[in-house]
């Protein structure tokens, strides 16, 4: 494994009496797209600010390329930031904004600066906008200028603080592709902060899911979506049906009063667990063929699928995503495969979780999703 570009060890942050970060340990490798994902107030932006140098950790260490940088001022760090409000200087035009950092370094000639600014603006497809005032640009264009201003300095790492949150849905989708593409072209590390799980899943090599000052789970988007560590992660990432149940023995779990075959193992017999079933993994069939019988309550047409809400006889709510519409009041059966069931232990740490997954992954590879 290569030396991580950024390493945070046991980082705490307190403001007055509130603890924002409660022991953060993360490592970021060179050239990957990372996302800090969590609800507002979870501390994700604080991590970004600590790496950028706008605020300091109350305790714990920050390493850049193996060097401790806790006391290095922001203007000497080889990271640049794209701010949530873009923070483009309103008294300068687009060219001057992008050239700002280069001019400070005093080692570039005027032609050099113009050349680099032009390259940066070209890479965000704004080459013709150099002479515009910031106030003349749309939100999406300001966003691109902010990115150009950060990448023109050729940082080792780019920090992005919810940069897409102010854009409309269509533009946000386009920018997801562009950011991902830009990251791959530049080959530098991106650390992206967002509360939008769709953005995180679409762009990241690795996601850190955060809540209340802790990193709850880290992993690839697919890992986190398929194997959420706990109730919070399952609920926050995508839509979920979460039910309480009991792990009867390895590969057999009981919930809603029935026993089902499942892929999970490595727990104590009869341990209380939570079970996750993703709405898109549930298939509607006839009541006779279903593993469960539910009554359709309501449905919403979401464009690419129907979101159906149903209740079983124990009044548990079931969320189903189906390409076919259903009829309200109708009784239907629900089927799912053993590997669609994801069992979560209560209060399991990420380390224990990873160790357990590894143990039964090897022996039970054939039960898992093909």
């Amino acid at each position: 494994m290569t030396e991580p570009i950024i390493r945070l060890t046991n980082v705490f942050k307190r403001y007055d009496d509130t603890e924002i970060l409660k022991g953060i340990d993360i490592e970021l490798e060179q050239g990957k797209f990372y996302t800090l994902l969590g609800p507002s107030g979870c501390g994700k932006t604080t991590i970004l600010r600590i790496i950028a140098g706008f605020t300091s950790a109350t305790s714990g260490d920050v390493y850049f390329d193996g060097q401790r940088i806790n006391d290095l001022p922001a203007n000497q760090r080889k990271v640049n930031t794209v701010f949530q409000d873009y923070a483009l200087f309103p008294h300068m035009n687009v060219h001057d904004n992008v050239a700002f950092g280069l001019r400070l370094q005093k080692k570039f000639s005027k032609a050099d600066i113009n050349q680099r600014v032009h390259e940066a603006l070209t890479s965000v497809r704004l080459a013709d906008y150099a002479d515009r005032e910031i106030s003349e640009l749309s939100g999406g264009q300001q966003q691109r200028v902010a990115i150009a201003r950060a990448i023109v300095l050729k940082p080792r790492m780019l920090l992005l603080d919810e940069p897409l949150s102010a854009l409309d849905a269509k533009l946000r989708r386009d920018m997801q592709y562009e950011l991902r593409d830009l990251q791959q072209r530049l080959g530098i590390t991106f650390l992206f902060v967002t509360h939008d799980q769709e953005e995180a899943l679409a762009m990241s090599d690795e996601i850190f899911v955060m809540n209340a000052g802790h990193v709850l789970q880290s992993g690839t988007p697919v890992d986190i979506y398929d194997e959420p560590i706990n109730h919070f992660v399952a609920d926050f990432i995508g839509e979920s049906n979460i039910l309480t149940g009991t792990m009867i023995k390895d590969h057999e779990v009981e919930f809603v009063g029935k026993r089902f075959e499942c892929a999970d193992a490595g727990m104590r017999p009869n341990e209380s667990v939570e079970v996750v079933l993703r709405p898109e993994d549930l298939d509607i069939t006839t009541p006779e063929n279903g593993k469960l019988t539910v009554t359709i309550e309501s449905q919403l047409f979401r464009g690419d699928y129907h979101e159906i809400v149903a209740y079983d006889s124990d009044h548990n709510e079931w969320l189903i995503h189906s390409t076919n519409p259903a009829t309200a009041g109708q009784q239907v059966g629900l089927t799912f495969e053993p590997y669609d069931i994801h069992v979560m232990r209560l209060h399991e740490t990420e380390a224990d979780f990873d160790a357990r997954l590894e143990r039964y992954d090897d022996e039970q590879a054939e039960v898992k999703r093909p």
Partner: protein
Amino acid sequence: MTQRHFTSWTYYVPYGLWVGLFVIAPVGLIIYQSFLDLHHHFTLANYQAYFESGTYLMMTVNSIWWAFLITLFTLLISYPAAYYIHQLKHRQLWLLLTILPTWINLLLKAYAFIGIFSQAGVVNQFLSLFGIGPQQILFTNFSFVFVATYIQIPFMILPIYNALDDLSGSYINASHDLGATNWQTFSKVVWPLTLPGVKAGVQAVFIPSLSLFMLTRLIGGNKVITLGTAIEEHFLTTMNWGMGSTIGVVLIVAMVLIMIITGERRQDRGRVR
């Protein structure tokens, strides 16, 4: 329709009356009187006298020079003060404390300084401790500029403080992020973005400073003669209202010029480049 038109029109009455009675009418009267001689005949002699006599021009230059000095010292003290207050924890309280002296009558403050600066005053008592007093402090140019600056400081701090308050912290972070030192951040980002506040402060200080006359007498001992002093003399002593009005017109023109010079010129930006 007519009803609504009528009610919306009535809202302007107090403002219209105020502006008409206390702004337009006096300015009109001053301009009218500036063309009258002592016998109330129309004449251009007042203006001729103003521009031909070295005394009045000297007085004008003097007024501008003293107003410039007062504004400069006020700015030099107020910008760092506003910057510092803005970073304090209980900044609203500290701001209130700096504004507090403006609630006290100017004349009272002037008399207080007479007490402080006089031969037997606190300052001279203090200097005597070191054997370098008593000194003549009152009725000097120094005391005039000192007291005038003291009185003007709150009017400069307030607009600068507001400009700093409007400045988003992310601009400062962005500047540091792009490699700027604290000084570079100040000179390239904070100062240009708070310049409107500075301009507002300069307007609020320079223009009234042009026509200070009470302080010139009470603190400056009439050694500093400004246009304000001249106007007072013409209206109250020589009774030459025409000449007094002429100087008043010159002051009004000077104020308008300063408003134009320090005013926002937005439409110019971006086209020049």
